[in-house]
């Protein structure tokens, strides 16, 4: 993995000037995003054990729910649960919930951790003075996080299937990939909003925890959306992973889904993606301006 | 009880830094000798200075006495208490001031910081508060007492750091670069304070400011690469190189320092250069005699312009250069 680094001094003065006149600020710098994503992935590959750890750890966090369910409802099923959710086996039900939710958890923690890390190593301000839109840097980080997150989610899924002895329809793979792609795209917008909040509140660890835990509470992971109070159900549907969890669960457990319902899900996710990107870009830009006016970016 | 308040006995500290080049083997080990057999005794009420460049071992020595670093061999005693065997007593007997503004809590106010640390020195709340206010007053920080440290200037934070080390009015003080990075007024304030108010204290001070050592210290140990190279009063140290003069010159252009070293009678020579201008410092037995030959070498042989020329009394830096071939500021 060697990269040749070009010596800037070999450039002549003229070409430097040409570079400067050519330079135009862009709203989104895709190559910067790519470079940043590659950097993060290269670092990640150096610690292969991390993938395994982060694949297995979530099972330790989720397992208490299965154990609690076993303790209060008996192994695997309950009539009340079947009545409100439409599924028989709550273990099979929950594991898919975990699988999809890991994308959300990952994107929230990914952004929080990135910020914290750059703050600690003092590279946040230098990074933000580079002549690329900051949102591209974020996107790059988010992109590498989704690749890592996918690996971890798959490891988790395989482990959980093995550990709890649950199975899913193999025909679900293609539609699941499609749903996840759109969902991840929507999550990026959501991530930009989180990043904006972190910039303003300067307290990444608490804030990421707060957001991660509340979205977890609202998401239909261990329980169907119907188990939430009516007024809260609407909020739950705004979280990008909610539609993802419901749709993927439907296909993976039943093996099929009616085409209109599937198209409807895709449409709804696409709509959410657009909204979140708009909101995310706006709120991040606003937060950036806010911190610059107060000149408080490095000191947390 | 011995006559000395601080006794340092054959202190040696060897760090072994392990570099892992592969996941399992091979492992590369590197030995770094931070202190080599250092001994030094400080009598009651005296100020001793450790003078040397960065990485000479000054901070390791201070940290070892402060019980923060365990020595590989040897020991030290503070007020008769062994820093290894009776470390809690030794810690109670001394105040340590590391010249690091991060060694107090930035989220607490000046007063809160001092009260907090006073309680770690076993003071009940009222007494701690009284002592904190007294010290803040002496440091001229009374009107900033309730300001969070993060909102104060660097100099003010350093004053709090300094006041913190005085909180229990210890008979022994270890001051590690107390004026580093301070603007001149603050630095002068602190030095005056040490000189006027802390007369009865036994102090070990590290610094790389020559004039600070000159002004404050009764005796100075010149330290380089973990060893004490020379020891004495500032006057004695300078007398030691008295028979040598030092010549300072400012030159337009870059002379060949190696050739200068070859000139007869030159004992040592060093050069710094910037933007095509150079400053050279040369020592010799008879500076005035050498001066003519040096000038002629520079002007006639090298064709350089000499802007400024001076034969100087030796400074502590010259002494250090003489002993180690290295400058303190390097």
């Amino acid at each position, binding site marked *: 993995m060697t990269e040749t680094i070009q010596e800037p001094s070999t450039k002549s003065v003229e070409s430097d000037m040409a570079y400067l006149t050519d330079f135009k600020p862009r709203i989104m710098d895709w190559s910067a995003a790519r470079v940043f994503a590659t950097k993060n992935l290269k670092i990640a590959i150096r610690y292969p054990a991390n993938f395994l750890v982060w694949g297995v750890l979530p099972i*330790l966090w989720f397992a208490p*729910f299965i*154990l609690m369910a076993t303790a209060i409802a008996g192994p695997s099923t*309950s009539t009340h649960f079947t009545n409100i959710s439409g599924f028989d086996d709550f273990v099979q039900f929950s594991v898919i919930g975990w699988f999809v939710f890991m994308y959300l958890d990952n994107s929230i923690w990914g952004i929080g951790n990135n910020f914290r890390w750059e703050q600690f190593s003092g590279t946040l301000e230098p990074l933000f003075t580079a002549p690329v839109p900051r949102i591209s840097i974020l996107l790059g980080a988010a992109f590498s996080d989704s690749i890592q997150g996918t690996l971890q989610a798959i490891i988790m899924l395989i482990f959980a299937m093995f550990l709890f002895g649950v199975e899913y329809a193999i025909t679900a793979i293609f539609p699941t990939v499609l749903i996840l792609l759109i969902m991840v795209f929507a999550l990026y917008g959501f991530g930009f909003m989180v990043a904006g909040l972190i910039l303003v509140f300067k307290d990444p660890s608490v804030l990421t925890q707060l957001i991660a835990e509340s979205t977890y509470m609202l998401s239909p992971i261990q329980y*169907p959306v119907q188990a939430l109070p009516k007024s809260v159900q609407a909020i739950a549907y705004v979280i990008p992973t909610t539609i993802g969890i419901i749709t993927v669960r439907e296909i993976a457990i039943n093996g099929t889904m009616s085409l209109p319902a599937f198209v409807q899900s895709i449409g709804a996710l696409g709509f959410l993606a657009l909204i979140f990107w708009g909101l995310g870009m706006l709120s991040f830009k606003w937060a950036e301006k806010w911190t610059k006016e107060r000149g408080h970016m490095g000191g947390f | 009880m011995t006559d000395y308040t601080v006794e340092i006995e054959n202190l040696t500290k060897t760090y072994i830094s392990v570099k892992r080049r592969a996941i399992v083997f091979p492992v590369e080990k590197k030995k770094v000798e931070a202190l080599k057999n250092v001994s030094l005794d400080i009598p009651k009420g005296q100020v001793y200075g450790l003078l040397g460049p960065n990485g000479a071992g000054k901070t390791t020595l201070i940290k070892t006495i402060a019980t923060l*670093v365990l020595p590989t061999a040897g020991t030290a005693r503070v007020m008769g208490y062994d820093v290894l065997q009776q470390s809690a007593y030794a810690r*109670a007997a001394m105040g340590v001031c590391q010249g690091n503004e991060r060694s107090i809590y930035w989220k607490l106010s000046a007063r809160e910081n001092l009260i907090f640390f006073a309680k770690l020195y076993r003071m009940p709340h009222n007494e701690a508060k009284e002592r904190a206010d007294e010290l803040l007053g002496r440091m001229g920080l009374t009107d900033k007492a309730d300001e969070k440290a993060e909102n104060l200037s660097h100099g003010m934070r350093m004053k709090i750091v300094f006041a913190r080390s005085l909180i229990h009015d210890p008979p022994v003080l270890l001051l590690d670069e107390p004026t580093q990075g301070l603007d001149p007024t603050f630095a002068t304030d602190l030095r005056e304070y040490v000189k006027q108010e802390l007369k009865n204290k036994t102090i070990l001070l590290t610094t790389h400011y020559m004039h600070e050592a000159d002004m404050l210290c009764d005796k100075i140990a010149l330290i380089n690469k973990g060893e004490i190279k020379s020891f004495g009063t500032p006057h004695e140290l300078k007398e030691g190189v008295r028979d040598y003069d030092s010549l300072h010159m400012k030159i337009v252009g870059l002379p060949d320092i190696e050739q200068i070293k070859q000139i007869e009678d030159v004992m040592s020579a060093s050069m710094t250069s910037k933007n095509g201008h150079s400053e050279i410092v040369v020592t010799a037995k008879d500076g005035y005699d050498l001066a003519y030959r040096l000038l002629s070498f520079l002007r006639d042989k090298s064709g350089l312009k000499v802007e400024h020329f001076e034969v100087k009394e030796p400074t502590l830096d010259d002494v250090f250069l003489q002993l180690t071939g290295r400058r303190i500021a390097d």
Partner: protein
Amino acid sequence: MTEEGQSEIFQKMWSRKGFRAELRAASAIAIKQWKVELSYPLSVLWFIIMPFIWFIPYLIAGTALTGSSESIHLQDLTGISDWLSYIAIGTAFTGLALSLLWGSGFALRREQNVGTLETLMTTPMNRETLVWGSTLHNLQHGGLGVILQLGASVLIFGVSLNVWGILPALAIIGLSIIAMQGVIFAVVCIVLTAKQGWMIVEFLSSILMLVAPMTYPIAVLPPILQYVSVASPLTWTVEGFRGFLMYGLAYEGVITAVIALIILDVIFVIVGTLLFRATERLVRQRGALSQF
């Protein structure tokens, strides 16, 4: 001090020794930590919300599974049919356990990060007192969380507590702290010596939480994990705490829980303290107090 001529302040300091001096230092550390925490507004908010955020998902999941407030299965396993009370009281302890593990376990690392660890180490207090001080803080911090969650459970979710059990439940927490301090010392050692130590700690604390009978009796755990559970002080703390708060003085498992806790106290605090002393020496040998 044998020598004359020292100032009054210094002489007074010198004459104060022993447990009271250490306690004063520990409480100063606890207060200092409150001041630092309260200067971050978000962490105050987090502190208030956390107990609920922890508890509510279990509540929703439980309702979705049973549809009522009674569970026959739980009755069979534990003799308690009121699953809501069982879980509400069981998880009340979570916040306290987490703030002890993460708050106190990482206290020294945080001091290292902000640059104050070396200064603290030059003061004459016992070095263990530094960790005990942050345990004291997190006990207050986490204890408030327990009260908050239990209060809300009673007021909002209709859980009933046995008033006579409150004092004995506190005594159980008191017993638990000693063994937990052993765990905390172990965490401190990991954090100060291992690279990416927080990952190991995350793993350890997840296991501890998994085998603790907070939302289920340990009977539903796989057999191997049941053995781990028996050796964890958290298990007996949660059992004893819940037992007293549900049954009051009529709680039957009291003797087992107390004896188990006392045995674990002795083992954990001794092993932990020894580990801590060894680590503290190692770190000073490496001269690594200021770096990581």
